[in-house]
């Protein structure tokens, strides 16, 4: 659940989609998006509490699980980025190239 954030820090609500575990962010329209840039950013404890209250129905309705509030920063172009490395990796996926499954030529017949 939510950690203590700086009172005026920009923040968003995140969770995992229950049925498949996908990382999602709460949007201003009250939906859940896998894209962090779609997230509704608030910047006060009061706004955060309101946002969380609005999300609790979706937890009860089994849409999402693991509700959390994370601190973010917004660059000059409006792009949202998490402050912590953990959330940065969570937002974009592993920092490494994932193994690519490629087919091999069939085994030669035994000599």
């Amino acid at each position, binding site marked *: 659940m939510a950690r203590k954030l700086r009172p005026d820090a920009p923040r968003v609500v995140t969770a*995992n989609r*229950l*049925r*498949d*575990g*996908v*990382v999602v962010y709460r949007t201003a329209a009250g939906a859940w998006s896998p894209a962090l840039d779609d997230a509704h950013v608030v910047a006060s404890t009061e706004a955060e509490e309101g946002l969380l209250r609005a999300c609790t129905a979706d*937890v*009860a*309705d*089994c849409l999402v*699980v*693991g509700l959390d509030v994370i601190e973010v920063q917004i660059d000059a172009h409006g792009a949202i980025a998490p*402050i*912590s*490395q*953990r959330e940065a*990796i*969570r937002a974009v*996926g*592993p*920092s*490494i190239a*994932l*193994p*690519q*499954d*490629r*087919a*091999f*030529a069939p*085994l*030669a017949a*035994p*000599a």
Partner: protein
Amino acid sequence: MYQYDAHDQALVDQRVDQFRDQVARRLSGDLTEDQFKPLRLMNGLYLQLHAYMLRVAVPYGTLSGDQMRVLAHIARRYDRGYGHFTTRQNIQYNWIKLEEAPDILADMARVQMHAIQTSGNCIRNVTADPWAGVAPDEIEDPRVTAEILRQWSTLHPEFSFLPRKFKIAITGAPNDRAAVKVHDIGLRMHRDPDSGEAGYEVIVGGGLGRTPVIGKTIRRFLPKDHLLSYLEAIMRVYNAHGRRDNIYKARIKILVDALGIDAFRDQVEAEWQALKDGPLTVPAETYAAIRARFALPPYDEGLTGSVSTLRLDEAADPALARWIRANVAPHRVPGYGIVNVSLKAPGQIPGDATASQMERIADLADRYSLGEVRVTKDQNLVLPHVRLDDLPALWRALDAADLASPNVGLVSDIIACPGLDYCSLANARSIPLAQALSERFADMARAQDIGELHINISGCINACAHHHVGHIGILGVDQKGKELYQITLGGRSDDNATLGKVVGPAVPADRAVELIAGFVDTYLAIRHPGERFIDTVARTGTAPFKETLHAAA
């Protein structure tokens, strides 16, 4: 190989049905997450950073070719085309959907596999020597005991809610390849010097994680028929007195340390007197019946020779010779070898295998290894029954699938947990550092000159990569938002199990690579003839290596 009987099969089939119902009730809202979480964990299903993660048990690390094909199928059908072999001889899938998890369990049940007790505060998958049954130094195949323990501990009603998780490892050989001294209970087979009977040294209270401890011998020799009653006594003392008020002090090692091994032994002995010679006594015929299911496969007769006496044509095929030297171990049957398959190609993610690689291993197991595969605690695979004259053909086939790195037990055979790239507990990434180090030591000829050297990298204090017992151990830490790595030297998990000593402050990843390269150079400069890295550190202590640290600063 062991084959399920009707009871085993009914149990896993019923579990699939139960979990299917539980998932349906969770998705419909009949179960809350608080209600559901312990149920999914009992089936190895975690919620990690990016998705659900499923941990599948590979009992004592033994798989058939058909089982490996199903693991490949799961990777391709339900995940992203790969899986991750772990330091507890299991496999994990990182991108699982909750709604598909029951189908995965059903697919596994069809080949006698499951994910039961791969999580939770219960007795976990029992691990064993990956060369069990075929190692020349072995007294008896430890998988017979491991299977008895599996049957005893599976859904054991008294031990399903222990103070904390509980891990057991067993080796049937005097040379420990199962790290028995760093498990909650370690079993090492010995022969009674008087009767010649095989039995167990019982080691208790070992473990890594936040509080690393080398286990202590609680009983020097335990006859096999008393195994279950004695372990039940240990478990009862732990279950009664292990701490439940503090998760960090709940493992049996803390209890053993608090009581002292002698007082703990006294309590176990008192408990055992009430259990000894009772229903938990393993009848000789039961032991024999299970042993029969691990009967050695039908080897070709009339073969001779051993890999240790094999004449390698270095000039004709240096790469093959290098691979045989590093990856093929002597077998107890003349004319055969134990082939260790590295999942540690330079730059590869340690322990990861693609679906196609798993299928290739399964096919090669069927063709060259009598249908059998093993998983090792070092995140590699083993083809345990390979004819020596098949080695060139096998090597070529492995090489075509990027599975022929000649580095087993060498500096680039790095053990690493998933770290912060996947794990919700991690503080730092493990995989990128492992990749950087394996690329730094990608020269296999030099790696063989360096010799045996184990590097273990954990992304947090939970120590899933066993960094405390790495010859070079690396612990990832988060210091005020900075990803740093603390290095230890001199750890080992073999017969002379030792915890590594910290050398210097934690450093960034690029500096860690340079320091470790410097440690290796120091070793090469000061080693005595025939001395492995760990032998040199044991002889000199860390002082010469610390000089490297200062020189590089």
